[in-house]
């Protein structure tokens, strides 16, 4: 229901923006389309731990992007719908508006109105500070995919850095795997029953402010968010059929974040930290680490990056993320060849238990339009009392074939 409402709103906004831009479009050349269509096959290596789950899944995703600009880019319109159809998980088949916005660039500031995506942060293993867009968890297990966020963004660049103000009038619920989906908690999260601390529900207006700057080899940012937390607390409940489910509860929170990165030759030193209040007791969390790049290893064109990051959450075992006290170590190989071949191998080790996860991601381009991505992930030695124990059975290999246009 809520999703439909959001989409209706978006449809009205689209018509409005297109009607605004149409007379102008006629005067200049038409806008441009780009994007991709991709097929994905995912094979799970073990029998499912839960009865409804499948052994493998195939899915297709489509992400076209329309862009049009006027006055040398001082005015622009961007529309990026996103569709995924999945053979196994009904929740993973979904449609979203990733972007639909009008951008006005003035001499000393810019204003963006509509659905957008922004990224905050410097670390690789998790993105603590990045809070504006909701995570599209069902789309990508590694939390790298985000839902489009309706906003008014005013951005002011100056000698002193860049100041961004975000007014976020509508909240997007996190997506979760459905009954048939793998890589989930043992109980399904029933998104239809989502509850809010604010009486305004998903219409609570959230605010965010961020200052970012660079000083020499330092990259710095400080941000504050006030509004509906993106990460719900999951409560025990029952669905209309009387089965036990988890109900997402979205609190009103305040979150202050800092980001820092220092370049020192081939070293990058990184730190992200947050303090969040309003979701249980006030707590802090941070991720810090480094990335070192060996350039032209063994006299070849290849670069090898070594990454290490440590994440800590003051809530300890009560943490809602898998990163309560974890060490990530990774190797990133960049071939610098015509096909842009890349590979990343990593291990995340829980410092308090035996639990660890190992993953490999590799991609290569074929010709000018095709890209192949292979990903494999295994979950090892999760203790039975770990809240993510259910994914122990969900080691998988995934193959993506994408056509870019």
């Amino acid at each position, binding site marked *: 229901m809520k999703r439909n409402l959001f989409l209706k709103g978006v449809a009205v906004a689209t018509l409005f923006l297109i009607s605004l831009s149409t007379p102008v479009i006629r005067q200049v050349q038409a806008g441009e389309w*780009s994007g991709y269509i991709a097929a994905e096959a995912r094979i799970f290596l073990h029998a499912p731990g839960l009865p409804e789950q499948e052994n493998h899944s195939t899915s297709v995703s489509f992400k076209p992007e329309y862009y049009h600009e006027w006055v040398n880019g001082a005015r622009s319109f961007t529309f990026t719908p996103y569709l995924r159809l999945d053979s196994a998980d009904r929740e993973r088949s979904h449609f979203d508006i990733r972007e639909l916005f009008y951008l006005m660039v003035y001499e000393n500031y810019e204003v963006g109105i509509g659905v957008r995506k922004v990224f905050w942060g410097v670390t690789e293993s998790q993105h603590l500070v990045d809070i504006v867009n909701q995570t599209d968890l069902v789309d990508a297990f590694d939390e790298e995919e985000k839902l489009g966020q309706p906003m008014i963004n005013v951005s002011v*660049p100056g000698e002193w850095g860049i100041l961004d103000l975000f007014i976020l009038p509508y909240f997007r619920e996190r997506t979760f795997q459905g009954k048939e989906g793998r890589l989930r908690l043992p109980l399904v999260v029933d998104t239809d029953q989502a509850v809010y601390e604010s009486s305004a529900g998903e219409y609570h207006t959230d605010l965010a402010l961020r200052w970012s700057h660079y000083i020499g080899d330092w990259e710095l940012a400080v941000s504050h968010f006030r509004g509906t937390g993106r990460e719900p607390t999951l409560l025990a409940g029952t669905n209309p059929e009387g089965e036990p489910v988890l109900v997402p509860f979205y609190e009103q929170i305040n979150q202050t974040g800092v980001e820092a990165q220092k*370049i020192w030759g081939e070293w990058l030193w990184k730190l992200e930290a947050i303090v969040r209040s309003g979701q249980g007791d006030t707590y802090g969390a941070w991720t810090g680490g480094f990335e070192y*790049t060996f350039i032209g290893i063994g006299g070849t064109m290849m670069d090898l990056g070594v990454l290490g990051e440590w994440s800590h959450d003051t809530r300890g075992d009560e943490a809602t993320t898998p990163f309560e006290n974890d060490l990530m170590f990774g190797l990133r190989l960049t071939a*610098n060849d015509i096909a842009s071949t890349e590979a990343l191998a990593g291990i995340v080790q829980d410092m308090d238990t035996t639990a660890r996860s190992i993953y490999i991601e590799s991609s290569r381009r074929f010709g000018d*339009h095709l890209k192949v991505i292979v990903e494999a992930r295994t979950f090892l030695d999760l203790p039975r009392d770990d809240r993510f124990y259910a994914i122990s059975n969900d080691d998988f290999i995934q193959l993506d074939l994408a056509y*870019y246009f």
Partner: protein
Amino acid sequence: MRCIAFFVLFIFASSINLTVLHAETPEEKGLSIAMEAERRNDGFGDFTAEMVMVLKNRHGLESTREIRIKTLEVPGDGDKSISVFDNPRDVKGTAFLTFSHKVGDDDQWLYLPALKRVKRISSSNKSGSFMGSEFAYEDIASQEVEKYTYKYIRDEVCDGRDCFVIEQYPIHPKSGYTRQVVWLDKAEYRPFRIDYYDRKDSLLKTLTFKGYKQYLGRYWRASEMYMLNHQTGKSTRLLWKDYKFRTGLKERDFNKNALKRAR
């Protein structure tokens, strides 16, 4: 009379001075050629251009990248520039923002459009390949006089013109080269050929410039640059088109916001 005597003395003194100038060392002559080449390029203000990069491996297999470039001249420092990829399509919108400096490392940011992420990247990677091409980052970076020391070698005919041949030695310890041999024509101080010598001082690459065109009645730009790697047999051809000078770009067109919407 005394005045005349002084005058004669003055002329004499000046001519000594001139003789000293003419006896400049090969290093001084090399530097003055480099400075004259830079002086002739001063004052362009800004420019935009489009570039097609054709990568070819030993077996003749080709791959093409298309890049748009905006550059702003910064008086007293290195240029600011934004380069945006249009092709291959999976990297469309990927963009680099560079603040180059006469002294010290450049500041560089990379924009990844799929994640909407701006990453500050290390510019100490001088010798690494730029997007799989035979051009290293230091080859495409803003060429500032202060980045090298120089030595004049000889005069020679190049591309049918009278040319200077100078050697330049990178100052940065992370450079992939011991030296570069540069052929510049005497008439316009335009580079026609550069030989790159690797860390072992063996010939690594040769860059040749073709199809010079003059803009605003002053600034020369090559429409074709061809880099051949002698050690691997691979090559990269850059085809430049649509040069526009003094388009009115400002400092504010070169920040992280501008990078994100560069497309």
